[in-house]
């Protein structure tokens, strides 16, 4: 037998009363704590989960101008629903100009943002419209 190989424990199966080193106790306690945190956390999450479909809230804010003087806007879409959304398409209009923004994925309880740039000289009241999205 290799000197580093150990004989089978004589206390096989005796999970709670087995003699352990301090290192083994530390490993076991840290591991059990991590498992407990994840499992209890997921159970609490399941209990509090809103459930149902994705609920998207879109907003925008002026984000300055590009190097050519074109106005820029930051579009933010937040998903407050109970499931994720994919292929989220929004349309930003500024006067006669429009820009489509496609966000690939927005998990639930998360948000995504993107910057859109209009040509220099574009003017008017900016408008934002949520056009479509898919639920995976």
């Amino acid at each position, binding site marked *: *037998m*290799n000197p*580093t*190989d*150990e*004989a*089978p*424990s*004589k*206390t*096989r199966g005796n*999970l709670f009363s087995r*003699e*352990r*080193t301090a*290192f*083994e106790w530390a*490993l*076991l306690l*840290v*591991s*059990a*704590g*991590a*498992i407990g*945190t*994840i*499992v209890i*956390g*997921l*159970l609490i*999450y*399941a209990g*509090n*989960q809103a459930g149902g479909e994705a609920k998207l809230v879109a907003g925008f804010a002026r984000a300055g101008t590009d190097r050519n003087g074109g106005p820029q806007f930051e579009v933010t879409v937040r998903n407050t629903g109970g*499931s*994720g959304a994919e292929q989220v398409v929004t349309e930003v209009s500024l006067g006669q100009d429009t820009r489509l923004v496609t966000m690939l*994925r927005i*998990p*639930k*309880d*998360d948000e995504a943002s993107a910057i859109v740039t209009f040509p220099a000289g574009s003017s008017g009241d900016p408008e934002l419209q949520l056009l479509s999205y898919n639920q*995976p």
Partner: protein
Amino acid sequence: MSAAAAGATTPEDTMRGIAGGFVLGVPLVYTQEVWFHGGNLSPFDILGLLAASFLLNLALSTVVGFHAGRTKRPFEDAVVGFGLSFLISAFLLVLLRRVDLEMAFGPRLGIIALSAVPISLGFALGNSLAPREGGKLEEGSGGGFGDLLAAAGGAVVLVLNIAPTEEPLLLAAELGSIRLIGLVAVSLALSYVMVFFAEFGGKGGRINSNHPIHTPLVETVLAYLVALVVSAGLLRAFGELPAIDGSTLARSVVLAFPASLGAALGRLLV
């Protein structure tokens, strides 16, 4: 020797499991579908997956495990492997900025739990990751330079399916310099620990070798540089390094993390 010390789990055993967890888990952590589904799957689905994974861990701990020569404590080993896998998963995801304090609590837990599944399986297979008696490479067949060739081979094998994907580019774009430096440090530390601490085998031969490359520090740094060059080469081959600039280095460093694990594994196998 006390009863507790006989057959006790050692830090070296634990590092074998952790190394196995990183090798099997990192490719999945570099997958954006995991980031998405981890945050969107029902908590009950994730708990079901965790339960099934724990049973698989229990089975693997019965026949392999991370402690050489001991498969008589499968439940305790499975608990340790499973629990530490959550911590490794959380560490990796924070390092790669896939979870942070701004995220909601539930999705954060979901991503950590989902990423921990392959890590835990790697943990339970840690003992069989490399031959216990060490590699078979002889001095005449390349010595230290043969090790670096093996490092390059291992790096290619582990990252060939990651390099053509979007994930290295996404991560490189989102990680700041502090995290990139952290990634380099973790790559070097894991590489060192896998080859010179975890007792996979062949450690004594390396340390006692007169070859200049077999100095632990030199070999670790050289192997990392090999992983970095392999990563840059693969990214270049797949058209992901169009210019030489800061993003080139960032993308290479991001891919060099799994590549350095492959490089360490390659050196253990020769």
